[in-house]
């Protein structure tokens, strides 16, 4: 049986965390784990690397000196650059979104009624993105192998030609 892809959710608000975890938990291909602080999430990443992290922008409403979302995002990217991080915040300021993307976030979702459907779509987009990049990578490998094959063939023909093997072949005159 194929193992489920892992999603981590980081939000300091238990209700927000639960709502998102329950919503994404409806997707059978994903295993969801949630954390109240970014520090807990970083510790979990060191044990098991997820495919996606949904990360709240402000994380200090419960623990005053907790690292904020941008700091956690940078730490995640240092630990495992392949993890796709989706920032979530009640902030709809464009500079917050731009800052998140600049630090490598895959997407930015504003909390509110549409956020859960948007989160689900983002998971699908990440899956599609990974599938496309995987296909592109396979094509690239195939093209390189084809090029090497052609080059070897040309070298072989030149070798046979210069050593007179081709002219000795029947029908070659």
């Amino acid at each position, binding site marked *: 049986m194929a193992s489920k892809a892992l999603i981590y959710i980081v939000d*300091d*608000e*238990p*209700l*927000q965390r*639960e*709502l998102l975890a*329950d*919503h994404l938990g409806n997707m059978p291909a994903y295993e969801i784990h949630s954390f109240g602080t970014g520090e807990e999430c970083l510790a979990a990443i060191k044990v098991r690397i997820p495919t996606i992290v949904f990360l709240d922008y*402000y994380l*200090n*409403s419960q623990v*005053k000196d907790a690292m904020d979302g941008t700091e956690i995002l940078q730490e995640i990217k240092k630990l495992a650059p392949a993890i796709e991080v989706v920032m979530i915040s*009640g*902030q709809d300021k464009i500079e917050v979104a731009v800052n998140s993307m600049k630090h490598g976030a895959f997407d930015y979702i504003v*909390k*509110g*009624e549409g*956020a*859960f459907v948007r989160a689900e779509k983002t998971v699908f987009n990440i899956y599609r993105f990974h599938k496309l990049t995987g296909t592109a990578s396979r094509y690239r490998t195939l093209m390189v192998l084809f090029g090497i094959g052609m080059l070897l063939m040309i070298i072989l023909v030149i070798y046979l030609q210069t050593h007179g093997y081709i002219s000795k072949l029947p029908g070659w005159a």
Partner: protein
Amino acid sequence: MSENKELTDLSYLRSLTGGANDKMAKYIRMFLTGAPISLQQMELYALSKDWSGLKGTAHALKPQLGYFGAKGTEELLKNIERMAGDQVDLEQIPSSLENFKAQLDLITVELEAQLKALGN
């Protein structure tokens, strides 16, 4: 004179949960547990003039009110967040918090009635 209009509207939550009563009850209980703590934190932050703390807590609680359809109260909290964040109209914060507390009391009564109606 207008009728007593409810502050909450659970239609969004109902659609999000697909009408699952157990999930709705769970979310209501979580809100009823968390919101008074957040209010207490905000009052303490306001007393100690910790505007950043007040802004953070208001910011975190704000979307939750939206999920329960309490749009007016969400707006009130948004205003508190703005005043604390931009440090403007600070003299209005105590009265805004009082207003918020009164609305949260009404919301609590409404949600407790909903919990009963959900069979919890």
